[in-house]
């Protein structure tokens, strides 16, 4: 009974939050409601007995991703709202219709994996975190390492793309040259 009440409560809250994210014009409201929706989604993971996944969801999404969006939004003029207009509404309707048809087809399709057996069954005695660690570091070790390299590449890419003055190598300049190097604001003052 508790599970049913919790499921419907969090389902309603999640859908409401994500609807606000999609519909609102203010980017700050969208960010806040997205963060709230992410936390509500972690409740489903706890309900489903995937405690470690729920904790990771809170830490990664509301901790890292939302902080990254919040810092990223400082670069943008979020008050200056973007003109929302669809140039070709017929195309949008057609695409949405095709997607709806696809979803219906997926739901109606016969489930091939109905009698599939579990490759890595859940051990009730271990507990979720220990069980996941066991599978992740034995069967999924190579994808785990590849994911680590991918995150490193993404971090370096993000620094290179968003960083300032990446065309000047400070390590190659002498101290005198660094002191004489003009900053952006000084150049702007000179122009004025």
């Amino acid at each position: 009974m508790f599970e049913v009440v919790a499921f419907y409560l969090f389902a309603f809250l999640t859908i409401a939050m994500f609807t606000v994210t999609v519909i609102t014009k203010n980017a700050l409201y969208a960010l806040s409601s997205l963060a709230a929706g992410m936390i509500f989604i972690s409740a489903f993971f706890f309900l489903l007995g995937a405690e470690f996944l729920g904790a990771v969801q809170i830490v990664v999404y509301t901790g890292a991703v939302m902080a990254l969006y919040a810092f990223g939004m400082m670069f943008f003029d979020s008050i200056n709202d973007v003109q929302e207009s669809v140039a070709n509404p017929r195309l949008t309707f057609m695409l949405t219709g095709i997607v709806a048809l696809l979803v219906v087809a997926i739901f109606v399709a016969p489930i091939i994996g109905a009698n599939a057996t579990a490759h890595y069954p859940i051990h009730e005695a271990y507990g979720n975190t220990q069980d996941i660690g066991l599978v992740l570091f034995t069967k999924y070790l190579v994808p785990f390492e590849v994911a680590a390299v991918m995150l490193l590449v993404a971090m370096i890419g993000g620094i290179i793309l968003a960083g300032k003055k990446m065309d000047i190598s400070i390590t190659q300049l002498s101290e005198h040259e660094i002191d004489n190097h003009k900053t952006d604001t000084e150049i702007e003052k000179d122009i004025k």
Partner: protein
Amino acid sequence: MSVTLNDYLILSTLIFMIGMYGALRRKNLLMLFFSTEIMLNAVNIGMAAISKFHGDLTGQMFAFFIIAIAASEVAIGLGLLVLWFKRNNNINLDSLQSMKG
């Protein structure tokens, strides 16, 4: 009365549709990133539900890798978005037309 796999999959589909609507309808590039996050999370719910009701940990493993991919997507995407905003001073989707013939 208890929550079944179908309930979770229907919820997952509903959240995915919300994200899809946002991705199709919005013209703000930041909102497109938010919609992508919503869609990835919808898939994660489905993965975790199937993992529970099927008694298999593979679904949770896939959810982990989806979270890792989402994190790196945000890092690269926001970097590109900041670069685009510095050059063009707006984040409208319609301004991405430099290859238009």
